[in-house]
């Protein structure tokens, strides 16, 4: 399959079941809501090294948030309920509670409840106040900047992590420009996050390493500087490869994000140095979710 001169490989992205939650962070203004959300989703690119994958889903207008202030929707993905609960508690406690004027609410109403204000309330040292409004419990925790407000719990859902595609380009600036184009449009897709820095992976990994202590190492078949030294997957025209990883609440959401992203990349075409699109998988034996590129783009 070739779209606007860009070759779409006959391959698939392999993704895995994960547990996910969503929270809504609000603050006095959108700038501080975003700062709080960025702090909460920092160091959360990969479950292997960070314990979870987290990202900003989108900004919310005051009409979309529970307290009528500007907000940001954040999603966190982990491999188990326990791991997710631990990450949620520490990130909400260290990044949102500490962020000035912030408040945190559930972003998923149903599903398995995960403690939110239920844990954070103890910071109030006995001065915390519980309020049950509209059937939901909130905790008012007195803090130095005023009062921190947290909903008691947020919901956890079964989700999918690890949707991906790789952009192969003639140069590094062209690969990055293609990623930027894809990210811009993919951020508009609801129910997905792009957990890596700015949504882009500059150093995709393969499973295993020659060093025993490492479970993952550089994806040498896709490293352009190793074309002559390893069993390379790259043609002579490729000088840079970048990857976009997608985690989503639903398989269909990842499908949609991949389709829109690849479409945006292909729109740039060979005239902008984009030559090929492929995807990362492990032979299809590890992950139950397979996103076939040509089926998505058909």
């Amino acid at each position, binding site marked *: 399959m070739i779209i606007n001169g860009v070759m779409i490989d006959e391959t698939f992205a392999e993704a895995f079941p994960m547990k996910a939650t969503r929270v809504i962070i609000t603050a006095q203004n959108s700038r501080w809501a975003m700062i709080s959300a960025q702090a909460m989703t920092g160091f959360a690119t990969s479950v292997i090294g960070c314990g979870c994958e987290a990202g900003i889903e989108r900004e919310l207008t005051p009409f979309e948030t529970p*307290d*009528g202030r500007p907000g940001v929707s954040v999603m966190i993905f982990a491999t188990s309920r326990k791991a997710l609960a631990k990450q949620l508690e520490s990130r909400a406690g260290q990044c949102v509670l500490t962020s000035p004027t912030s408040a945190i609410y559930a972003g998923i109403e149903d599903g398995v409840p995960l403690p939110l204000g239920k844990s954070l309330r103890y910071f109030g040292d006995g001065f915390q*106040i519980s309020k049950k409004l509209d059937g939901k419990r909130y905790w008012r925790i007195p803090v130095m900047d005023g009062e921190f407000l947290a909903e008691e719990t947020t919901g956890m859902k079964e989700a999918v992590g690890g949707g991906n595609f790789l952009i192969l380009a003639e140069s590094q600036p062209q690969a990055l420009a293609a990623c930027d184009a894809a990210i811009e449009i993919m951020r508009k897709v609801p129910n997905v996050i792009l957990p890596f820095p700015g949504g882009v992976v500059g150093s995709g990994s393969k499973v295993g390493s020659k060093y025993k202590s490492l479970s993952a190492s550089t994806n040498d078949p896709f490293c352009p500087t190793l074309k002559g030294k390893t069993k390379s997957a790259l043609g002579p025209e490729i000088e840079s490869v970048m990857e976009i990883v997608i985690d989503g609440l639903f398989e269909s959401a990842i499908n949609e994000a991949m389709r829109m992203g690849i479409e945006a990349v292909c729109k740039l075409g060979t005239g902008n140095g984009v030559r090929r699109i492929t995807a990362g998988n492990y032979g299809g034996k590890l992950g139950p979710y397979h996103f076939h590129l040509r089926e998505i783009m058909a």
Partner: protein
Amino acid sequence: MSILTFTLRKRPDQRVDMSPLVHNKLAGMPVEEIRTLTLRLGKRRVEVDELFDVHGDPGDRFIIRNSSNKLDYIGREQESGAITVEGDAGAYLGMRMKGGKITVIGSAGIFAACEMQDGDLEIKGNAGDFLGGALPGNKQGMKGGTVLVKGNVGQRAGDHMRRGIILVEGSAGDYCGSRMTAGTIAVMGDTGRYLGYAMKRGTLLLWKQPNVPPTFNDCGSHTLTFLSLFFASMRNSDSKFSDPVAVFNRVRRYGGDMSSSGRGEILVKIG
């Protein structure tokens, strides 16, 4: 929707215990059988038919027409459905109710919503003493649900209240929020003496500056985010509390009652 109507034939001389006439007890019962149910009238026992003209189909909604303040225990331990009282209600209205809705077009007597657990209770007139309170000797009053009073409430509103919301569009009598353990009482009008007497926790939200008891300490002026959520939760209610003009989040906070555990608060609207 099927509606069952109980029209009071004449104002009773003695007090009537209405507690058998709730949806959960009458579900599936034919009207003929409902007419033969026994009610307490003072120290006598009488059939429903002697006091009320009953007609309609038993369903989710009851209407008590020509009601009187002699009718006690209306909606006692109600679990679901709706009762509309056209006229006044007696004492113990909605006592220990667990769900559904009760609307009183007139006023209610003492101990309305006492030990209420959930549901909605609306009184378009006034309410007597001990609204949402605990029965004498009991330690926990209202534990959940929402009570809206469009008129005034008597003394000891929310006595021993444990959870839930009481909204008063009018004024409240003395000892409002006395011995409260938690929950929220909002009063748009005036409040009497001994506000929050022996209050342990909970919130008294006031529109008018009260006579703050000396056992409450001034904690200063604040903008509280939770008030936005509080007013948002009122948006569907047919009351002044749902009016956007009534919304505020800037308050003066008084902490107390320091003669008790002192974790309650009086929040007074600023401006």
